[in-house]
């Protein structure tokens, strides 16, 4: 069995399962953000006309993290957040991360850094980038609000079809200023935005074994941009190190590994030793080009942050490039750390000061400009270069603007020049 097949067998109490089987797996962790407001409506609707009280099946297995619109941009959002706060308070949900400078942040960073996700877990989230948590060896996938309401009621996901798995084997050492973001952009460009639709990407190879959890989160986060149901890295020593040292987990871990004879739909091999920095060009994530083909493109706004690339090592590389230098005139630079914890760590290491001295604006942790709700909208005809995960038309709030996606190193180097710049040449 593949890792996901094994996890699903365990979650359904079966000796084995195979791709195509229809199952009803138990959920270990069910995550929502502000869209819990809609989940609550649907949840109450399920109980309409029944004698049963609307009770979450197991409040310990539910997490709610406010990140999409923090602090609230409108009375409507503030009222939604208030409604969610009251509901989960009444239901006894403890894994709640409000808008705070101590425990707040983006859901896909808050979950791992608090040790909420463990290898072998079934994780569902009302956010497509829930695939991120495959980085810890969990089967994690995005669902809609109504499906989450059903999970809150039953504790299982109904009628899950076991997805086939593509084995991705990655070899070679990254060159300087090339990393996980370039790798996943390269893979998406190769297999297309629908190349893994309804499938799992299972990552293997020496390059993955050497990659820290922060980088694995990038790969799994963006697996959904190839259409994947989930991305997953089988748990190893690094997973254990991360959970023990960075997430403070002390109880036993039960890693789930694939069988030697696991049945893969296909195998994709990638060698990164000659990989160049990769750029996803407007308006699809699979429109990927090596940096040489787009270098020199004028950019009005640079964004570093998000659930994809707002972690401490991302900020470290940006700080190294920006320290003592200046963001080019006519270019705005916005930086938003993935969590309050990372923000404080970056503060301690002097990164935040270096960013501000360079002319960047550092914002609170949250989804920020990534999805065009508030903060950092683009003007008509403007171009952004961003470490986020999507460049769809209108994504940053303006359909008359364009978004390019890149790594933190490329974003920082480009901030200094105001044009897309190869960090190896700056």
């Amino acid at each position, binding site marked *: 069995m593949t890792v996901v097949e094994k996890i699903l067998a365990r979650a359904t109490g079966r000796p084995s399962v195979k791709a195509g089987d*229809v199952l009803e797996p138990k959920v270990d962790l069910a995550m929502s953000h502000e869209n819990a407001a809609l989940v609550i409506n649907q949840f109450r609707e399920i109980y309409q006309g029944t004698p049963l009280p609307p009770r979450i099946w197991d409040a310990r297995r539910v997490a709610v993290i406010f990140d999409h619109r923090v602090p609230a941009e409108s009375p409507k959002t503030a009222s939604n957040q208030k409604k969610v706060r009251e509901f989960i308070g009444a239901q006894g949900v403890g894994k709640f991360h409000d808008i705070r400078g101590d425990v707040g942040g983006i859901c896909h960073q808050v979950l791992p850094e608090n040790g909420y996700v463990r290898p072998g877990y079934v994780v569902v989230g009302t956010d497509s980038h829930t695939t991120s948590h495959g980085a810890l060896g969990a089967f994690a996938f995005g669902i809609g609000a109504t499906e989450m309401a059903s999970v809150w009621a039953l504790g299982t996901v109904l009628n899950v079809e076991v997805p086939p798995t593509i084995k991705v084997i990655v070899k070679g050492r990254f060159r300087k200023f090339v990393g996980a973001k370039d790798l996943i952009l390269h893979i998406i460009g190769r297999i297309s935005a629908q190349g893994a639709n309804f499938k799992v990407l299972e990552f293997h190879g020496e390059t993955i074994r050497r990659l820290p959890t922060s980088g694995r989160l990038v790969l799994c986060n963006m697996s959904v941009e190839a259409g994947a149901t989930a991305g997953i890295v089988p748990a190893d020593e690094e997973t254990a190190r991360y959970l023990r040292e960075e997430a403070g987990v002390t109880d036993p871990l039960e890693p789930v590994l694939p069988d030697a004879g696991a049945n893969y739909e296909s195998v994709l091999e990638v060698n990164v030793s000659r990989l160049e920095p990769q750029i996803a060009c407007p308006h699809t994530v699979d429109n990927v080009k090596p940096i040489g083909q787009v270098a020199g493109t004028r950019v009005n706004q640079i964004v570093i942050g998000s659930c994809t690339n707002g972690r401490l090592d991302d900020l470290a590389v940006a700080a190294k490039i920006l320290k003592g230098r200046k963001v080019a005139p006519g270019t705005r630079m916005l930086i938003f750390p993935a969590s309050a914890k990372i923000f404080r760590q970056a503060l301690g290491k002097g990164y935040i000061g270096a960013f501000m001295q360079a002319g960047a604006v550092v914002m609170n942790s949250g989804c920020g400009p990534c999805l065009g709700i508030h903060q950092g909208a683009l003007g008509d005809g403007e171009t952004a270069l961003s470490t986020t995960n999507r460049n769809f038309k209108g994504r940053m709030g303006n359909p008359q603007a364009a978004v390019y996606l890149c790594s933190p190193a490329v974003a920082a180097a480009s901030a200094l020049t105001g044009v897309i710049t190869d960090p190896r040449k700056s």
Partner: protein
Amino acid sequence: MPNVVFKVGDDVSTDVIYPGRYMATVLPTETPQFAFADETAFNAKLKARQVPPGSVLVGGRNFGCGSSREQAVSCLKGHELIIVARSFARIFLQNAINLGLRMIVCPEIEAAEGDELELTAGAVVNKTTGRQFSVEPMPQSRQVIIDAGGLIPYTRKRLLAQAAA
């Protein structure tokens, strides 16, 4: 027989169907006004009620890719559109089943705006061009949710059965 009122290409994202800046609006009674908000001509027609219920929107491959936002489904359902696409992105497809948005997976569909379509169980017939395109049947695991009227009644039934057991 329904007409094609809007045609889009491949990889149409939920950001195009329902832009992120309207995500604070969640009620299915309120989301339809923002359907394809940035496709201003089509959005204006929808809001002016110039699109008859049961009209068809034709999509390419990977329709509804991107965000899991359910508003992208409820906004189309509010106008009682039928989506005929070459393929759908996974979360959008599941949300459509769960909310009862009618959609048809038709891998070869070719149709232009204005064409008249006949929708049968096994095929889509383009009456304007005279061509017929086969339809991918829905797997049983999804069909049972559609037949129950969506995931809410389906879950309610399961919950009551659980409580009775």
